[in-house]
């Protein structure tokens, strides 16, 4: 059975539509696979107990003649997205026994579309990390090489897709948390335009940066999942009005490469794979040009001021009073201290302290104020560049997947993993990571990610060029 299971949304839908397979058979097949291989991978924190019930409902809808791009398709959900009645822990001890009281808007949309939720996936605690090693509930292994990390923070979602134990998955991206794990695991990851997907029911990390997006086997699948989850939502006022048009597709695109950005600290194999990707795009008739965008190099420093500042504010709500872990202290204020001290792991505490520092009086102007000015400049310069090119291309991450434990003792080294991904969050634009090429390590061919960034609402550009890179389109 498991050999005949479809691995893409399109294949699954074709089988369901032609009645060659039922949604229950499909869900069962995936549950068996999870049982067989997730003990080693640990992509899932929990497989839901109502998967077959959900699949039955999908079958009933199919029997009535209903159709739709996600009807009956089993997918995985990152553990920071609320599914009503299910635990949502953000891989933190703080929320270990927290049960969601409502569905996130993306879940409501997918439920209406008939998707089947297999379970919730492991992640870096509160989405803070680039390896899924900061989860309070154990690490996840990379399906391509179990001695390596799957990337993060949506590492469980990426590993579930790459390990064929979910057809697709939802992740969230604040500084690269969809794209970098997608690159490490050899799958497709889309960080949509900021505000194009509702974050109602997503646990807030950096509110000026956060966005939910898909991790899939193909660009076409990412496009399908994105089309279902996007749209204006009254519950997230940040969402873009539905009448704002997406950028239209073209026949020939101009791809800009910020050469000077790619000289420092990039693995030679990653760079070689990137060059092959550029050639693939050129062969398909697109133009590749060098661009100068010096300010983009400051994105990472800007990000590591703005993000912790927002983290320190957003995570103030976790105080052990209304929900989550509660620890008794000497008095009421000490209850907060003890609950937060015991509930949050090392990386989360580090970022809260850092955020508190950059926002504190006396340092606010020197750090947060400066970072906001820098963000304006980066955004402005990118806008100028996008007058000349349709997309900016870089590798997704400077290295292929690294060994488990190799970066846990050096937070700054871990942060440098985000060097190419944070710009899209700082600017608010969409970015896509597709697997292209490999890097040989210890006899294993590790996937390498190719990243494309487009202006606001330029998703269709990303899909067109992404398909060229994956071979889905000539």
């Amino acid at each position: 059975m498991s050999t005949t299971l479809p691995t893409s949304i399109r294949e699954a839908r074709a089988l369901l539509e032609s009645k060659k397979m039922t949604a229950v058979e499909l869900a069962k097949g995936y549950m068996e696979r999870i049982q067989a291989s997730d003990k080693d991978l640990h992509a899932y924190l929990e497989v839901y107990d109502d998967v077959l019930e959900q699949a039955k409902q999908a079958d009933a809808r199919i029997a009535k003649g209903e159709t739709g791009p996600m009807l009956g398709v089993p997918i995985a959900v990152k553990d920071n997205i609320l599914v009503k009645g299910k635990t949502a822990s953000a891989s933190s001890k703080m929320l270990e026994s927290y049960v969601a009281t409502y569905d996130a808007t993306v879940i409501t949309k997918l439920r209406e579309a008939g998707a089947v939720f297999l379970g919730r996936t492991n992640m870096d605690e509160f989405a803070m990390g680039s390896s899924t090693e900061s989860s309070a509930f154990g690490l996840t292994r990379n399906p391509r090489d179990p001695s390596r990390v799957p990337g993060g923070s949506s590492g469980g979602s990426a590993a579930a897709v790459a390990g064929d134990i979910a057809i697709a998955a939802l992740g969230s991206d604040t500084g690269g948390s969809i794209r970098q794990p997608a690159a490490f695991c050899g799958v497709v990851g889309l960080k949509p335009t900021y505000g194009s997907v509702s974050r109602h029911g997503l646990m807030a990390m950096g509110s000026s940066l956060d966005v939910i997006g898909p991790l899939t086997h193909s660009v076409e699948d990412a496009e399908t999942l994105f089309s279902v989850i996007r749209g204006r939502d009254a519950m997230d006022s940040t969402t873009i009005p539905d009448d704002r048009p997406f950028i239209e597709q073209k026949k020939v695109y101009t791809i800009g490469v910020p050469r000077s950005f790619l000289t420092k600290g990039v693995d030679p194999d990653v760079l070689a794979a990137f060059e092959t990707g550029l050639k693939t795009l050129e062969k398909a008739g697109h133009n590749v040009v060098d661009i100068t965008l010096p300010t983009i190099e400051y994105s990472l420093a800007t990000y590591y001021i703005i993000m912790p500042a927002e983290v320190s504010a957003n995570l103030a709500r976790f105080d052990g009073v209304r929900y989550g872990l509660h620890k008794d202290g000497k008095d009421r204020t000490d209850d907060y201290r003890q609950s937060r001290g015991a509930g949050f792991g090392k990386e989360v505490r580090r970022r809260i302290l850092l955020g508190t520092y950059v926002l504190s009086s006396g340092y606010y102007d020197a750090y947060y104020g400066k970072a906001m000015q820098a963000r304006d400049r980066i955004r402005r310069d990118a806008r100028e560049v996008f007058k000349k090119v349709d997309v900016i291309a870089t590798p997704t991450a400077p290295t292929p997947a690294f060994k488990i434990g190799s970066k846990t003792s050096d937070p700054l080294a871990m942060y440098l993993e985000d060097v190419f991904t944070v710009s899209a969050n700082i600017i608010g634009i969409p970015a896509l990571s597709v697997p292209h090429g490999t890097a040989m390590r210890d006899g294993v061919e590790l996937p390498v990610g190719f990243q494309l960034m487009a202006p606001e609402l330029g998703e269709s550009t990303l899909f067109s060029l992404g398909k060229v890179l994956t071979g889905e389109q000539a």
Partner: protein
Amino acid sequence: MISKDDVKKLAELSLLAVEERELDTLAGEIDSILGYVSEVTKLADEEMERETPALRNVMRLDVITNKPGEYTEAIVAQFPDSDDTSLRVKKIL
């Protein structure tokens, strides 16, 4: 340089219990991160006019969107300590 005492003060400000033995490591790590992010000063431009981007975080209006009591049971179930539908907390005064 961030000192141990600075970290203690930050922990106090953020209502976060941090163990004494962690203070040195945290001071060192925060110091090295601050050293790196200080790069932004090279880009910051005091003269430049600040802009409000079209895509920005917008808070929802603080209005009630649910029916009375719709979530009460589910929310009370999450309380660490409760009395019927009330949240029980330590004495404030």
